[in-house]
């Protein structure tokens, strides 16, 4: 069993500047922020390294940080330019009974990162969901399609500046 500080030190010694920051356990769970383009290597290490053995990806969630510049157009419709979207990986080791949260932030204009599907199989559908609702692209994903919404849906509904369409296939959407 390792505490978050020890896990952070291990990662830091292995990946140096690609491991950015350790956020303390209060008020949320302890969280390690890493470089989005190195997520695959780091995940691989977290999973295969004997003293870490993170064998389970409990949850993979997308978040819209909405920290970009908010612009209102003439009709009062707000769009967000710049800023980031984040992905949180909640990892657990059944073997060693410790857990950690990994966070990456990708630019909103080009939200791309690498898939961890080859490391934890369950990431497959989680990543499809994050793609479906936030438009985050997971490179190397074997089958990156929408999972919940219909294939012909426009836009990514959980982004903070999403505009609900007026019609979908001839059905009026707003109340």
């Amino acid at each position, binding site marked *: 069993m390792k505490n978050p500080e020890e896990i952070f030190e291990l990662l830091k010694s292995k990946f140096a500047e690609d491991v950015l920051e350790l956020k303390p356990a209060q008020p949320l769970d302890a969280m390690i922020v890493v470089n989005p383009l190195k997520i695959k290597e780091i995940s691989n290490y977290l999973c295969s390294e004997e003293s870490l053995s993170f064998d389970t990806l409990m949850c993979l969630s997308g978040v819209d940080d909405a920290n970009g510049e908010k612009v209102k157009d003439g009709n009062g419709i707000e769009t967000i330019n710049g800023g980031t979207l984040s992905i949180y990986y909640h990892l657990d080791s059944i073997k060693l009974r410790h857990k950690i949260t990994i966070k990456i932030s990708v630019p909103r204009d080009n939200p791309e990162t690498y898939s961890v599907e080859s490391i934890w199989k369950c990431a497959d559908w989680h990543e499809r969901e994050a793609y479906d609702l936030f438009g985050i692209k997971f490179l190397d994903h074997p089958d990156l399609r929408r999972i919940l919404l219909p294939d012909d849906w426009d836009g990514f509904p959980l982004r903070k500046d999403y505009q609900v369409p007026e019609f979908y*296939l001839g059905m009026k*959407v707003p109340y």
Partner: protein
Amino acid sequence: MGLLDKEFSESNIVIATAEDIFNWARLSSLWQLSFGLACCAIEMMATSASHYDFDRFGVIPRPSPRQADIIIISGTVTLKMATRIKRIYEQMPDPKYIISMGSCSNCGGPYWEHGYHVLKGIDRVIPVDVYVPGCPPRPEALLEGLLKLQDKIRNESLVKKTA
């Protein structure tokens, strides 16, 4: 039903109008498509179970739309599901009836404002005979809805168009 009171006392002959017979037969065996959508479906299942016993009104779940007379839209209708419901509805043979159960299928329910994915009322897609309000409606309310539907069928006419 208007059947028994017209019975001849010593024979087995019953006289009734064709309309009455058809309506009576229809309203007494409304086979329901076994189809449920969200939390309301749980309540619909409770209505089918022994405690409330939908069966005593002749409502039996049928797995195929081609054998069903009635479809109970029990729950949240997402836009993706709405296209499927329309197809199921079109596969049902006439005469067919629809009960809209719960706020979601009546008008969008709790998703009326922020539900980008929810159809705000199944009547935007298919015609509804009876609306049952509630979130979820109690089984008694669904039974009441069914009785209302039976009333409606009882007054149907073969020649006059009913609403």
